């Protein structure tokens, strides 16, 4: 049997997905299901003075209209609304009271027999408000921004301390670059709409199908909000049509659907519209100032990275926006300042590689500008500033094959043919630009519990409450289990996305691949141990003297690793022992060793072609070289990077949530006007995985869901500069920014 780990195994759920057999949260049906349609606020701040639902109630087929005035009881304290990954602050409470905290806030739920009737009736709800002045523009709130406080909770980030004497180092630097960079608010826009189907079971318990990245997080949260017992609520999310961080925290579709199900004692579905999804979280806008000081030979001596990021008035969301700078490059002196600007918007949230794509747009643009000032090749500058240590915490890396990313990426791209002078390369009427940038992300692992049930016929069920948000978790779990249990892939069934399954963290931070694969390894060891005990009892057992760590499972056998001829088949061992089924459940904790930094890295090279007169930008080539530890599945991993690069193209050239600051309202709240790349914007993308051995966990897995987007936008921005001589420091790079 060929090993599955490290191969291009196609998704085991692929056929179910393309045939429609895979059911998503809003596709589960029960007889008598009711449909909820959300009414949202049309002001950004103030309170509701009058809410008239009488016209909606008169519509045939409408069952009820729930508002803050008539809803059933909900918790009245912040703690009850805190979820596993809530930032500090006072979480938003849907339909709680008359306060309006952001535009598009849910203020009523119309429940009807059909979704069409619900939606029509929702249009008849009239609302009067008392408005209060609002601020939605980060530039207007910038001066009032306050420095972040290290969070008390384990979730969140403590900004790194300054090191050395950055002010003096900057002042004495032979070459300095200082610049301000801006990235606007961006929204996740997963293809699947947010939806929840709540089934009111005959015993009063609730089965909740929700679009989420963490079923157990949602389950705990709903118990908190509604004071329900854990056994009374089961949350499932077998398939997720993309989430990208927007489903890490429980969202209000689940609250509203449960609210209605409890109020009416009926099964209820709530699906948000595309515009309503702009009331969920978003990647915060970020204004950054970077100052770099270097010696004439191109070694960095000082980094100062200041950032202002956006959050709501009621929670303090942030990640380690500024700290990446002093981590990525060798630099004796560094300082960071990170402030939060409070806006009358929903709380910002994690979006694919939270903080890093924005922070590294600034840092890697600044490094490119420094290279120009030094008259040095931008890649050469990176090599001269290469850091063998995490200087933020003064420790080595568990592994760092970034140098190899630079080498292989540059070779595949043909970087050595680059003429360094801006505007020096042409293809007919187009200017050609080559740019590069570095990426860095975390290689995290979280505690996780995996259950494996093995039957004597050689099939196994692997169960864990994690999610597969489209990344391929089902498939890598099956690959790892198949290899370690020594069974064919098709004999493995995967259960996930169910709160009753063994514990899992939310699927985020690129940590699930490392967590669940090593979790499977731990549980397989327990299964193996039980099998070995059984095998020893077989008459004349060739494994009578074998120790657990001396045997492996292969081809349906328990095999002595020192002498492959000594083996007992799994079927024989179980039959002799009179055992039909072996079930083991183990929890795997990541190493507590924090003496080493654990990160993934990338080198991104981009080619743009730009019509000189008109400014139309085409990203004709991207090479992304990734150092991400062991690759479990080269096909799904490559797809993760390809998708990330496409998103990076969008970040560079297209994406921007347009807010009318007078109205405090998102105006391009749909995917026709919120631009992401289309096929015509995407050309040749090459993904390279460089070899990187890491012993932080037994499988050497680091996670690849996020590293691919980081560095793409600055690589493109740097290519635009190289092509045109024009430095664009605010995203997206629309063609008007290239005009004089």
């Amino acid at each position, binding site marked *: 049997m060929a090993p599955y780990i490290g191969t291009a195994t196609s998704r085991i759920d692929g056929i179910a997905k393309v045939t429609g057999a895979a059911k998503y949260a809003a596709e589960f049906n029960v007889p008598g299901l009711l449909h909820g349609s959300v009414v949202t606020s049309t002001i950004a701040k103030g309170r509701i003075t009058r809410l008239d639902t009488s016209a909606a109630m008169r519509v045939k087929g409408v069952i009820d209209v729930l508002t803050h005035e008539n809803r059933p009881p909900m918790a009245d304290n912040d703690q009850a609304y805190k979820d596993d990954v809530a930032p500090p602050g006072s979480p938003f409470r849907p339909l709680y009271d008359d306060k309006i905290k952001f535009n598009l806030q849910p203020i009523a739920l119309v429940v009807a027999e059909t979704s069409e009737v619900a939606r029509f009736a929702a249009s008849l709800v009239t609302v009067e408000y008392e408005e209060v002045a609002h601020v939605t523009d980060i530039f207007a709130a910038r001066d009032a921004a306050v420095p972040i406080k290290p969070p008390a909770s384990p979730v969140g980030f403590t900004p790194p301390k300054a090191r050395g004497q950055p002010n003096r180092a900057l002042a004495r630097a032979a070459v300095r670059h200082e610049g301000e960079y801006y990235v606007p608010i961006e929204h996740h826009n997963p293809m699947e709409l947010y939806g929840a189907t709540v089934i009111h079971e005959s015993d009063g318990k609730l089965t909740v199908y929700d679009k989420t990245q963490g079923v157990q997080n949602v389950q705990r949260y709903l118990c908190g909000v509604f004071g329900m017992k854990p056994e009374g609520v089961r949350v499932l999310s077998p398939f997720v049509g993309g989430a990208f961080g927007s489903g890490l925290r429980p969202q209000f579709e689940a609250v509203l659907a449960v609210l209605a199900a409890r109020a009416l004692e009926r099964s209820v579905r709530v699906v948000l519209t595309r515009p309503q999804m702009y009331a969920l979280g978003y990647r915060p806008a970020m204004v950054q100032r970077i100052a770099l000081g270097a010696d004439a030979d191109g070694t960095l001596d000082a980094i100062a990275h200041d950032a202002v990021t956006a959050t709501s008035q009621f929670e303090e969301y942030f990640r380690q926006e500024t700290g990446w700078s002093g981590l990525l490059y060798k630099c004796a002196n560094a300082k960071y300042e990170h402030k939060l600007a409070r806006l009358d918007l929903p709380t910002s949230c994690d979006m694919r590689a939270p903080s890093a794509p924005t922070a590294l747009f600034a840092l890697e643009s600044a490094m490119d500008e420094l290279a120009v000032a030094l008259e040095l090749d931008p890649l050469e500058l990176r090599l001269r500033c290469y850091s063998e240590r995490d200087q933020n915490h003064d420790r080595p890396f568990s592994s760092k094959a970034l140098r190899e990313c630079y080498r292989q990426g540059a070779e595949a791209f043909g970087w050595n043919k680059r003429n360094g002078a801006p505007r020096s390369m042409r293809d007919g009427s187009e200017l050609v630009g080559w740019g590069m940038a570095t990426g860095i992300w975390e290689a995290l692992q979280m505690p996780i519990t995996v259950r494996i049930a093995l039957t004597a016929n050689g099939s196994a069920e692997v169960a864990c409450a994690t999610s597969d948000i489209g990344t391929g978790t089902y498939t890598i779990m099956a690959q790892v289990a198949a290899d370690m249990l020594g069974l064919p892939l098709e004999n493995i069934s995967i259960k996930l996305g169910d709160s009753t399954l063994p514990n899992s963290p939310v699927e985020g931070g690129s940590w699930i691949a490392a967590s669940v694969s090593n979790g499977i390894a731990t549980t397989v060891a327990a299964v193996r141990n039980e099998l070995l005990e059984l095998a020893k009892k077989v008459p004349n057992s060739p494994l009578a003297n074998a120790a657990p760590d001396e045997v492996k499972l292969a081809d349906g056998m328990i095999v002595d690793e020192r002498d492959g001829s000594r083996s007992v088949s799994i079927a024989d061992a179980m039959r002799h022992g009179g055992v039909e089924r072996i079930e083991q459940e183990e929890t795997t904790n990541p190493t507590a060793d924090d003496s080493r930094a654990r990160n993934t890295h990338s080198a991104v090279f981009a080619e743009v072609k730009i019509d000189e007169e008109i400014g139309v930008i*085409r990203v004709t080539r991207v090479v992304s070289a990734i150092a991400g530890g062991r690759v479990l599945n080269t096909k799904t991993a490559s797809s993760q990077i390809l998708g990330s690069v496409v998103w990076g193209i969008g970040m560079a050239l297209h994406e921007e949530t347009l807010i009318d600051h007078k109205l405090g309202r998102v105006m391009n709240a749909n995917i026709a006007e919120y*631009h992401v790349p289309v096929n015509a914007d995407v050309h040749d993308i090459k993904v390279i995985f460089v070899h990187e051995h890491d012993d932080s966990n037994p499988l050497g897995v680091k996670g690849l869901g996020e590293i691919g987007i980081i560095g793409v936008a600055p690589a493109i921005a740097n290519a635009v500069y190289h092509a045109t001589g024009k430095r664009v420091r605010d995203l997206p790079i*629309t063609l008007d920014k290239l005009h004089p």
Partner: protein
Amino acid sequence: MIGFQYARAGDVTDAVRLMAGDPRAKFVAGGTNLIDLMKMDVERPSMVIDINRLPLKEVEEVPGGGLRIGALVRNTDLAYNALVEERYPVLASALLAGATQQLRNMASTGGNLLQRTRCHYFYDTATPCNKREPGSGCSAIGGQNRMHAILGASDACIAVHPSDMCVAMAMLEAMVRVTGASGERAIPFAEFHRLPGETPERDTNLSAGEIITAVELPPRGFATNYTYLKIRDRLSYAFALVSVAAGLELEGGTIKEGHFALGGIAHKPWRDPQAEAALRGQPANAKTFALAADIFLRDAEGYEHNAFKIDLARRCIMRALSQAAAGTPQSQSSKKIV
């Protein structure tokens, strides 16, 4: 979406009769714009009259050398029609610059003329918009107006017409055939769409109850020297920031006749006779094109986010005219600007 009646018309007379019976009715053909707007509660017709069975699906030659395009000819069928490709390639090109293959398969010729603006505020019923709700105000003035007009706008509305097809038809000087209760009439293309003025709720000069039956193209198709150049914020599936349909008749290096119309910059496809007069009899070179562009844009005015379109329009006019003069029309599949 709000409840509505549905009726199916069997022929043009039937359609006109049904419409006459209900002033709040709307015709539907491909539905690619109307249905979206109904879902957004922007359009609230009391009745939808399905005209898809009307016999208006032919592209026919007319005596004297023109072409008559039935109002129900789908954008895809029109773009790949052999006569259009051969004699009016600028129209084929403009059609292929618009929307997506799936939308073009559904969208009709008549519906394309009647598609409504893509102004963000027009689509969001929570915001004031004079076009959607006369008298409520224009949110785009002082709001998000990157996509908006630089010519012909008013204090009541700065929205732009989103069509690509219409820009080519305006350049070609098409004629719109309509039928109403009082009979048939023909509207010159330049007079079909309106400027917003004080009544931005009215996009066109169609009279109440009239139905578009055909668009007629005159014999002159500029099939040798033409282009459709569309510039937008991504390389496909986005509305134009600026688009230019240009056609030249050359004698040697001299322009005998030159037409150009712009999309994405006004409430209607914009032509300027004075700018075109500046081409006539002049050498087909950058100096001539620059002069024509300057005349064309002499009254252009920008707002907070769209002032760049004045300079962009100037560059696009010059580029489009040089593409046309060189006989190297813009490809709609390769996105490289030629």
